[in-house]
């Protein structure tokens, strides 16, 4: 066996430095090397099968992992017992927990106090003031959906959670971003942490916070805040850095203190960009607040979660519609604040009276509504979409159910199954070496080392089999995503009409929380691995398409002209000029696509995709925190590997 592995590692070693010297040039081609590594892996798999699967050539031994999980369970048990005694909890986590819980409840109660007409008037007026009447109409429509789906109260709870967690994220994120913007050293220190946080799939965030805050809204608020805070730090730092050096220098030369430079020059000039960061943070919070329903967050996410676990597509659709409207409305309103576009041009002298008038109107509406005994939107006055949607679902299932089922079965038998057994059936050390070699070939020595360690880590956590299962799903979904994304992206870059049609669709898709992608996937493919895979592909596709399109459109016109003047065909133009020159974008597209696929595949556990994601949910449900945490960490390991593998030799992140 060892003899089989060595060439793999050897070819990997020789390649990057070109140290092979006299070797044929074919061996220097990365793709040839990668194919060789895969061939060795397959050979190893068959050899293991032939040998009857001896213990030394099997999956990762689980002894260490079991011990680790038992220890984590012990920690959890200790926490449960001591939650009300240990000073750490008594004086810190419990305070935070209670405080946050009450904050969410307070905001929720305040929204309830405003009554539905009050909230609607306030929301629509605010939207009009900052983003113009179109967005105001959109906001009105969103409130309409909340009301008519009978999910008004759930929507308000979700809104309260979002407000609380975004507030926390900004409270910490903006000062950190300012620091990172002003200090190079702090920026260097904080950047890898943010990078890491952004490749971590949402699901992996959940359990540690349960450990500290228990299950419920406080943990949900914290996890949402933590998940949502990298963009605001990053973008605030960027915004501060982008402030023209001349302005800062001029202010300094006039004797401004550092604080004056910050408040009078940097923050005012960075304001718009920072607001874009706030927008991104809000959008991440929306997606996380739905996922956090798994750890007991109430609201719309919970409604989807409940409906999905009962495979009630109709109910899931209703709640999904509400969350989609919430996401789009929040995006448009906060985006408009950042862009400053479409804001009604109110003369300065009218601004205060207008604000006062709006407040008076809101107060009046609230007062009248409360006098009339109106509270949240009455559940009885709702249009039940669930029944007709379910009917459509039945019809769709009857019509194409067999086809999708057959397609699903084929995918399972011929693609997912074999790949899964290749990864789980080969000796763990061979898989690890192959992964390290591939990362080395594509992204350099450091990436290879990290990848190898990530695999060993996943093994040590005791969830090797599930990790390999998840990996196989990710690989299949990623291959599909990248193939589709490149084709559609290229088409889009060729055809302006197609681009004009696709752009708003992609925009909308990118604002949706990942959770809702599961709903149509379940509608078409029922439950299992295949719908999770489909949801992952659809979810990861928009950014891939967009990056490919951007990359190709970014090729300078003079270069194209020169290539055309030398008689290139369109195909030659694409393959010899455009795609190579768009390499940076393509690499980034692959990287982002794969990271997004991973986060979605894990979430697919909710619709029966099994493996790591299932362990997270199962660990939560069965109070086996050890298993859940270990699986969460294994997801992080996989994320690390996939990110390093696709990072490329040039750092793709700007």
């Amino acid at each position: 066996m060892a003899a089989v592995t060595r060439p793999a590692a050897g070819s990997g070693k020789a390649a990057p430095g070109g140290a092979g010297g006299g070797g044929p040039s074919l061996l220097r081609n990365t793709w040839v090397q990668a194919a060789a590594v895969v061939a060795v892996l397959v050979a190893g798999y068959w050899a293991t099968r032939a040998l009857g699967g001896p213990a030394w050539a099997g999956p990762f031994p689980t002894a260490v992992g079991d011990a680790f999980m038992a220890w984590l369970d012990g920690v959890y048990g200790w926490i449960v017992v001591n939650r009300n005694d240990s000073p750490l909890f008594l004086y810190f986590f419990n305070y935070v927990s209670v405080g946050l819980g009450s904050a969410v409840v307070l905001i929720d109660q305040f929204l309830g106090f405003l009554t539905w007409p009050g909230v609607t008037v306030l929301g629509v007026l605010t939207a009009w003031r900052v983003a113009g009447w179109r967005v105001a109409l959109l906001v009105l429509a969103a409130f309409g959906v909340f009301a008519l789906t009978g999910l008004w109260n759930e929507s308000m709870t979700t809104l309260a959670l979002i407000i609380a967690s975004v507030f926390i994220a900004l409270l910490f994120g903006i000062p950190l971003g300012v620091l990172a913007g002003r200090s190079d050293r702090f920026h260097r220190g904080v950047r890898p942490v943010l990078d890491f946080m952004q490749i971590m799939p949402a699901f992996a965030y959940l359990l540690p916070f349960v450990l500290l805050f228990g299950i419920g809204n406080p943990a949900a608020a914290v996890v949402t805040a933590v998940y949502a805070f990298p963009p605001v730090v990053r973008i605030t730092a960027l915004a501060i850095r982008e402030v023209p050096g001349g302005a800062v220098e001029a202010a300094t030369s006039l004797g401004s203190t550092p604080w004056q430079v910050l408040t009078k020059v940097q923050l005012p000039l960075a304001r718009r960009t920072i607001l874009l960061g706030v927008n991104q943070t809000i959008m991440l919070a929306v997606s996380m607040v739905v996922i956090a329903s798994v750890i007991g967050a109430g609201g719309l996410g919970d409604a989807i979660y409940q409906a999905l676990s009962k495979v009630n597509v109709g109910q899931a659709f209703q709640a999904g519609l509400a969350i989609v409207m919430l996401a789009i409305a929040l995006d448009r309103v906060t985006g408009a604040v950042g862009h400053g576009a479409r804001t009604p041009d109110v003369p300065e002298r009218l601004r205060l009276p207008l604000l006062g008038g709006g407040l008076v109107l809101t107060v009046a509406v609230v007062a009248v509504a409360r006098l009339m005994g109106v509270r949240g939107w009455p559940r009885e006055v709702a249009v039940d979409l669930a029944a007709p949607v379910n009917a459509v679902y039945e019809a769709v299932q009857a019509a194409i159910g067999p086809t999708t089922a057959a397609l699903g079965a084929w995918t399972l038998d011929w693609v997912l199954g074999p790949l899964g057994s290749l990864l789980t059936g080969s000796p763990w050390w061979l898989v690890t070496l192959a992964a390290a070699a591939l990362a080395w070939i594509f992204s350099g020595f450091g990436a290879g080392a990290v990848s190898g360690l990530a695999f060993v880590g996943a093994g040590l956590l005791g969830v090797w089999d599930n990790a390999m299962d998840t990996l196989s799903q990710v690989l299949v979904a990623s291959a599909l995503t990248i193939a589709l994304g490149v084709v559609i992206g290229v088409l889009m870059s060729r055809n302006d009409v197609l681009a004009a049609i696709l752009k708003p669709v992609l925009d909308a898709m990118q604002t949706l929380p990942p959770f809702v992608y599961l709903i149509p996937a379940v509608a078409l493919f029922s439950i299992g691995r295949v719908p999770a895979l489909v949801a992952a592909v659809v979810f990861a596709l928009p950014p891939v398409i967009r990056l490919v399109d951007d990359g190709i459109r970014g090729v300078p016109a003079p270069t194209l002209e020169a290539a055309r003047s030398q008689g290139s065909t369109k195909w030659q133009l694409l393959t010899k000029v455009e795609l190579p020159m768009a390499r940076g974008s393509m690499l980034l597209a692959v990287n982002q696509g794969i990271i997004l696929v991973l986060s979605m595949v894990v979430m697919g556990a909710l619709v029966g995709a099994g493996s790591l994601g299932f362990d997270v949910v199962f660990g939560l449900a069965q109070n086996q925190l050890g298993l859940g945490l270990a699986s969460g960490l294994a997801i992080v390991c996989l994320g690390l590997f996939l990110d390093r593998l696709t990072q490329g030799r040039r750092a793709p992140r700007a």
Partner: protein
Amino acid sequence: MSTRAEGEAVPQEGASDTTFSVRHLWKIFGRNADSVIGTDLEHADRDRIKDETGCTVAVRDVSFDVRTGETFVVMGLSGSGKSTLIRCLTRLIEPTSGQVLLDGEDIGEAGPQRLRELRRHRMAMVFQHFGLLPNRRIIDNVAYGLEVRGMPRPDRYARAREMIDMVGLGGYENSRPGELSGGMQQRVGLARALAVDPQVLLFDEPFSALDPLIRRDMQNEVVRLQRELHKTSVFITHDLQEALKLGDRIAIMRDGELVQVGTPEEVVGRPADAYVADFTSDVARTTVLTARWLVREPFPGERTDGPTTEPGTVLAEVLPMLAASTAPVRVVEGGTLLGYVGRDDVLRAIAEDQLENAAAAAAIEGETSEELSDGATDPASASHVADLGDDGGPGGSATAGSGG
């Protein structure tokens, strides 16, 4: 007295009419900047230092004095270190070593608080790319320096309005910088600097980003303000015409070193080396050199009844007088006769301009010396005469240069 500093010929410190004294100023960018100064690398080529230490020498052992009330122009091509130099004066860039004295106070010793005080009250800078705050109205931009000082709003607005009127932007108080043209934006930058009533104005290539016509307007504006306000100024430019027009004295910088410091006449009339000569070769000398530059003792038996003129008259205006009279022009300052300028002197001054190399110039000099008596036309002694006749006016000869 040579215009070229001989290393040790550093001017005396703390002279009462000196505003800025810069002593052995170095600025080296890079990690171990200190490893250059004081070693034999100190005098090495910039490229060699870059190769060996990775450091970039921007300013190299520069010393000069700026006198109270004068406009001191630092001229050099891009990359010569002039912008770094002016930033070292107000510590927007920290010098690597050396001293900057403002009225005898070492700016390098100032703590953050004191440095802010100096920046708020004593010096103000005008920047090449204006450095205006786009989110503020013009009046708030102009009042910025007063605002950070803590001046109450009505007072600072009153002062800002005054400054805006002074630079001719009355009526634009409530516009935003983005709505103004480049020239107008730089007027705002000028007003902002003047608003704090600084002792010293620092100009960092303020007009380089402007169109030629606008640039000329702005130069005239500076000349006008200078005449009214008599501010001590340090002016950075890469444009020789601008330097000659605005400068009482000009320092020419190359590769981080001062090559020559002198009046416009000295720089044009007696370039320190081939580099400066090349630089000034396009200048029409008759518009820069003045009668004072050429004045000499009368030759024996020469007519002394020629027309009279001020020492500050440029040659272009002396020429017609000489054409009208065969006698040399008498140069008179306030009733005192400084000396004479004859046709030959002017011709030679113009001709030197046409000659590429010093040898040819020397040949001509030799010939004229032979024709005329005892070497009175030697340029060195001509300047000696000028020195004698100099009573502290702008025609003074150089003070310093760098050790080269």
